[in-house]
Every structure is written in structure tokens, then in C-alpha cells.
């Protein structure tokens, strides 16, 4: 939205293709208008920012070719290939700004594929989009500041039996605090989530080790060991899991972006310059470039727009742009400190029981991956591992298992994480129905 507004204001009529039916992405998701939801409660002190961006976008709609509920399933030869209710279509472009966002990074654990287990983002979508809680007794587990935010949003809207299990020990959070203070506003905001949860009586346990989710046919309980090694079992009917964010990288890759390994966030991210430029007239903004949060999304969207206008010979580099660059840079650096306070517990991958399902689409276990790696001429690279074990080969194309697949493969081969490569992106970015191909003129 931010990039589109900037382009529209500069007199360029951008085409905005959004997979969602309502603008806003994930961070600025609009609550379902058909349900009476207290949007102000959900967004808290972000509410005004939320309203402001939406009103600016709405104000520009006559200057934007806006195509909601439309999937870009492939990018090839200077065209975005789309699918919506009318069928397949293609849109040629001079410049491309990708804002694919991110999803939760997930670390599997025994039982995580039981009905009733959601990703943290899905738990928020259920709330904002459908006005639903994912359960009555809900455990928010993993390692992410968004666990606190989601728990708070749920509590504000009336959910009562809530608990947060954070796998990062308190001492590591304290160690990360000086770095976090560099962006004191965001830090204070995070602390306020924690404080509000305490005040509301929602337990938050840090430094836990998640051991498994139990249930016959659906979630009945979660087991964990606390910071002192004592074992606990919490009865619950829903679990929301999240370990920070994982950038959606398929579209940038199909558009020709190159990738580099970010050791701080421990994932492969597109190579971009300070404006988000990833190639010839190709820009990536928001969490899809590198986790940065809502403010970075707005700023990086504007940056991408001005950068692209510059590439097309339609604007000059001004002071504004340098300010924006500094802002985005600072916000993304903050995320590196945050990644220490809310650690991705990668070493867990080594100790996952063999029977743990890693790839839920193809039912591939940690044991399958380890066995493949041990074979003579066994795979030591992710695409080969996928070819041999089918891990990452199903409906989601590795979007939810590749982080764990990489960790398990690296551990099984005794290689550093950045030496096992990354899964190559292939179209379609999301599954596309066969039937629609007949109705489409080419």
C-alpha cells in the first residue's frame, strides 16, 4: 500500500495485485467488516498508524489499478502471471515492486500436525478475518515477540484461558537488551505487551523446552520442560506456534533476485541495496526483503517506489530518501537484536525424535531425512534432499518445512547451515487449479 500510494502521488498509475481480498497484508490486515470486531483493541497503539495508511490508500484508489483476490503464480519474461476468479491472465511490467511478506518460521515438534495446532499468523488471521478464536484454552508457543502480541489481542477480545511458552531463556533476553534499546520505542512497546499480559493474569514462561503436543485426533495438551528442567503438561485445545518470521522468497527468486545468507536471522534473504533494489527495475519491500515490522514496511515501500521512479528516470534522490534508508536500516538492525532475545532454537533440530513429522504435506519425518543423509552418495544439499525424501515437495513447496529441513540436514551432514543451500523456487507459487486453464484466452 505504501509503495502504491507513493507511485500514485508521483503521477504513475501502478497496478496493485493482492492475493488477499482486502488490502493491508498481515500487519495492517483489515478486520472483517461483516463482523463487529473491536479493531482499536486489536491494534492498540498501532491503531492510528493502521487507519492512516488505509485512508491514504483508499484516497488513491482512483489512481491505482487495484486487483484484489488475485494470485501472482509465476513471473517470467517481464510478465506477472496471475490467477483470479476470472481465470489466468498476464500483466507486462516496466518495473516490479514485490512485497510478499513473511510467514511464521516453524520448528516441528511431535504432534504439531494435530488439528488444533496453528501457526501464530494463522491464529491472528482467524481473529481479524473471521472473528474466531482458534480454541478456548490456547497456548502460544515458540520464540517470537508476536506470541505476546497475539496473546494480548486474544485476551482483549475475550479469550481467557491463555498461556505463553517462550523457548528463549530470560538471561539471553537480558543479554540482548542493550541492543534492543537502540530502538527504544519498539522496545518499550514490547515490554508493554509483557506488562499487559502480566496484569491480565496470562502466564508467560520463558526458557522452556517444548517436548510435544498430545491428543487423539486433535490437540489435548502440550508438554514442556521449564527453565529448571521440571516437566509440565498443560491441557489445551489449541496451540499457536511461531519462531519469528520467514520471508516469502519465491516471487523475488522467480523475478531474478539473488540470495545471501543472513546469519543474524539465520535464513536466506534476497540481496538488496539500501533502497530495496534487487535487480533491474526490481524492488523488494517489507518483511519479504528482511524482517523489519510495520514501520519498516511503510518506509521500505516508499523507498522502493522512489527507487523505481529513479530507475525509470522520473525522480531524483532527495534527503527524504536518505532519511527513509536510515530508518529502514535501523529497524532491520533492531530485528537482529530481537532475534537474539527471541532465538530460533536451531539446535532443537538435532534432538527432534526420529518419528517427528517435518514435512506435513508429504509426511516426511526427521528420521527419513537423517537416514537419507547417512546413505552412501546421500544428499548433502537441500534440493537433493527434497528429491530423495520428498520433504518440501508437496502443496506448500517447502514454505513451512524448509527452515527445519535445512537445520536437520546440516546437523545430519555435519555442515554449517549456509553450506546446505536453499530450496529452489518453482512456479506455481501457490497451487493453481487445472480447470481454470480452459477458460483462459492466451
Amino acid at each position, binding site marked *: 500500500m505504501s509503495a502504491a500510494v507513493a507511485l500514485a502521488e508521483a503521477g504513475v498509475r501502478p497496478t496493485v495485485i493482492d492475493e488477499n481480498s482486502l488490502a493491508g497484508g498481515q500487519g495492517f490486515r483489515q478486520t472483517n467488516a461483516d463482523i463487529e470486531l473491536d479493531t482499536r483493541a486489536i491494534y492498540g497503539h498501532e491503531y492510528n498508524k493502521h487507519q492512516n495508511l488505509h485512508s491514504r490508500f483508499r484516497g488513491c484508489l482512483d489512481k491505482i489499478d487495484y486487483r484484489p483476490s488475485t494470485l501472482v*503464480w*509465476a513471473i*517470467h*519474461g517481464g510478465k506477472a*502471471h496471475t490467477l483470479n476468479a476470472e481465470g*489466468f491472465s*498476464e500483466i507486462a511490467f516496466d518495473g516490479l515492486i514485490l512485497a510478499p511478506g513473511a510467514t511464521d518460521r516453524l520448528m516441528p515438534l511431535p504432534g504439531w500436525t494435530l488439528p488444533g495446532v496453528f501457526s501464530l499468523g494463522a491464529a491472528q488471521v482467524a481473529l481479524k478475518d473471521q472473528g474466531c478464536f482458534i480454541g478456548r484454552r490456547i497456548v502460544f508457543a515458540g520464540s517470537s515477540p508476536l506470541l505476546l502480541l497475539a496473546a494480548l489481542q486474544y485476551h482483549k477480545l475475550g479469550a481467557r484461558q491463555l498461556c505463553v511458552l517462550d523457548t528463549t531463556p530470560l538471561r539471553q533476553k537480558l543479554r540482548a537488551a542493550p541492543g534492543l534499546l537502540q530502538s527504544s520505542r519498539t522496545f518499550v512497546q514490547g515490554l508493554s505487551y509483557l506488562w499487559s499480559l502480566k496484569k491480565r493474569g496470562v502466564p508467560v514462561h520463558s526458557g522452556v523446552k517444548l517436548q510435544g503436543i498430545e491428543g487423539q485426533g486433535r490437540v489435548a495438551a502440550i508438554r514442556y520442560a521449564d527453565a529448571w528442567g521440571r516437566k509440565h503438561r498443560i491441557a489445551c485445545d489449541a496451540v499457536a506456534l511461531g519462531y519469528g518470521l520467514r520471508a516469502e522468497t519465491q516471487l523475488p527468486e522467480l523475478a531474478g533476485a539473488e540470495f545471501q545468507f543472513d546469519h543474524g536471522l539465520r535464513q536466506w534473504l534476497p540481496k538488496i541495496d539500501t533502497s530495496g533494489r534487487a535487480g533491474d527495475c526490481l524492488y523488494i519491500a517489507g518483511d519479504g526483503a528482511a524482517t523489519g515490522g510495520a514501520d519498516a514496511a511503510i518506509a521500505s515501500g516508499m523507498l522502493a517506489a522512489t527507487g523505481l521512479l529513479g530507475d525509470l528516470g522520473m525522480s531524483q534522490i532527495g534527503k527524504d530518501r536518505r532519511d527513509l534508508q536510515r530508518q529502514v536500516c535501523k529497524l532491520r538492525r533492531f530485528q537482529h537484536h530481537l532475534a537474539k532475545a527471541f532465538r530460533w532454537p536451531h539446535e532443537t533440530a538435532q534432538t527432534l525424535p526420529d518419528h517427528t513429522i517435518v514435512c506435513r504435506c508429504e509426511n516426511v519425518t526427521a528420521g527419513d531425512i537423517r537416514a537419507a543423509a547417512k*546413505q*552412501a*552418495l*546421500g*544428499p548433502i*544439499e537441500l534440493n*537433493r534432499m527434497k*528429491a*530423495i525424501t*520428498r520433504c518440501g*515437495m*508437496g*502443496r506448500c*513447496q517447502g514454505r513451512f518445512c524448509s527452515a527445519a529441513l535445512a537445520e536437520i540436514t546440516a546437523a545430519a551432514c555435519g555442515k554449517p547451515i549456509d553450506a546446505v543451500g536453499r530450496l529452489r523456487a*518453482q*512456479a*506455481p507459487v501457490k*497451487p*493453481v*487449479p*487445472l*480447470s481454470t*486453464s*480452459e477458460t*483462459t484466452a*492466451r
Partner: protein
Amino acid sequence: MTQETETIIIGGGLIGAFTAYFLAREGHPVTVLEKGFVGAQSSGANFGNLRLQGRDPYQYPLSLRAQAIWETFEETTGESFEYDRTGHLYIARNEPELAKLEHHAEIARGQGLNIEMLATKALKKRFPYLAEDTLAATFCGRDATANPRLATPAVMRVAQRFGARIIEHCETLSTLHTGSRFEVETTKGSFVSSSLVNAAGAWGGAIAARFGELVPVFSAGPPQFVTEPFPHVIQPSMQMVNGSVIFRQIPRGNVIVAGYPRTASEADGNHTFVPPGKTLAGMEALGAVVPLLRDAHVIRVWSGVEGYLPDMRPIIGPSRKQNGLFHAFACCGHGFQIAPGIGAVLSELIRTGHSDTPIEAYDIERFRNQVPDNEKFIREFDIRTAGPAAG
């Protein structure tokens, strides 16, 4: 340090694997040099069809020999690559296509294969999910499929157990013959041998060129895609004789599909990107043959880097310029089925200088003269990029 062996094979694809297997099994010292991972190029990315119907008539002795090896390999070695005797259905939707079917069937029957001709009624009974307007089809129960992703590593492991050396991430930098032996410089050191096998697939033209044998090989790949899994109802692999689409359902439930025309690989020679329009054309063709599949979703698209020649025939056999050098590359999209046969024949040629299986039609010598383009070549490619490969 220079490493000595009897035979060096350049290329760790399926042909390299079977050649190494047949040599090593006879106690012949052999080393495979693979620039990346074994079986990661067209050997691993192809459709996985082990079809005997509709082959180049000349190819049957080689093809039948290969099929016999496919049929027993898993049992005799204990390795698995999901060999499945699914049978293969060749489908016609109009009279000219039917005439083509009959022609193919006659040739195959001449080779002793049992080919059933099924008219509309019989088809409807046996394969009720086929479209109403399906005219006729031929079925061969000996046709089969295997999982290409698993096949090459499996054969390589057996070769390794027989003593073959398999070296991955070993790119060949130079190859020359010094009068008595081959010297191969690689990113992992020097190797010398008395025989050399060029099984470098789409990259084989460059190796041949180092010995002064120029061939018009070029790289391309078919658009392929796979659907999400659903109940296993389609048993045989199926192919439209007009070449529009070929598909099979694996027991896991996914339907694997390859369509045409093929696409030329990128200039780097290492990637083939599928234009989305070709995927859509393949999807439409599939829905027309099996209307039931119109509800399916496509989850992944891919292609491969395969070596092609304008007469749509591979190059197999001894070099005509250098004693001790043997070629087996550019299989024009049908190398998977014949690979075990090629391995067996090359092993015989290297060890004894003779094989009873005829391969003369695949002699590299044919490119000394102008070779006419194959009708299939003209139909199945939309971009003509053929030209002599530069070394």
C-alpha cells in the same frame, strides 16, 4: 597426485551409473567424475517412463535389453527406485492418430511385444475416466515406470559396492590423449586411464569437441508439472500419440505430467525455465483427456537440461577420431529407458571391443554429413537453436 584407473566416465547421470555398474561388476577398475551431484540433471528430472511402445524401430534390441535389466535390477541388488510395471496406454483421438497407433503397434509386435488394441467401448470399460471422445488406444503391459530421482543414486551405490569410484563435485577442466592414455584434469586433481566414456548428457558435445568431433547438440527440456495427490485411480502411464501430453499417477496419488513443445535451455546451459503459457497448455490438454483431473491443482512445475540432436537420435558408440574414447550422450529426451542397455553395451565394447546389440545408427560419424531433421524434432520444439557446440 595423479589417480590411475582403467576407465574414466565423465558424467554421473544414469548412463554413467549403469556403465560403471556393468564395468565394476566384471572387476574392471572404473572412476566416475561428476561435476555436481549424481543423477541431478536430466537423469533425475525426467518423466520416469520405461516405455517400449513407439520407439525408434532401430532401437528395439537396445531397448528390450534395457527393459530386462530394469525388470530385475531391484531384486538382484536390493536397491529401490520404485520400478512399477504399470503398462502404458498410447491414445488416439482421430483417424490419422489411429493410423499412427497401428503403425507403432505393428513394429512393436514384430519385436515380440504384446500390444493390445482397444477401441472406444473396451477403453471406456477399462479406463472409465478417459474423455468420451477417446477413439482408440494401444496398451503394452510390459511398459513400466520408475522414479528418476532415486534411480541414478541407487545404481551408483551398487556400482560403488562393486568397487567403482564415484567422485561428485569434480568438474572436468581438460581431457587429452597423450599417445598411450587419457589424461583428465579436474577440480579434484588429475586422473589417467586407458579408456574414456563421454556420458556428459547435454554437456557431452563440449567433451566430443575436445577430440575434434563436432555435433549439433543443444540443450532443452519439456515443460513438466505435478498435481496434488488424490486417490490412486490411473494405473498405466498414458500418452497422447499426437504428443500433446503424457502423464502418470504414482501410488502416492500425484499425477506427473509432461507436455510439449520443449523449451530451449538458458544461455548458461544449466537451467531450463518453463514459460507459464506452456504449463497452462499442458494443463488444458490433460483436462481434455481426463476430465476428472479438472478439479486437481498443480503444485509444482519443472523442466530439465537434456541434450538434443536434430535427428532425435542419441550418440552412442566409439569415437571415430580417438581410440579408447566412447560416447553416450544427447539422448534427445528418451535416455531414461535405454540407459541400462547403453551401460551394458559400452561395458562390452570397452572390455571386449564387441557387442551383439546393434547401435550403428547412433554413430557420431553421421554428423560428418548433413543429417535431415526428424519430423518429431520439428513438431516438438518451438525454438530452433541447433548449432555446432563450441568446445
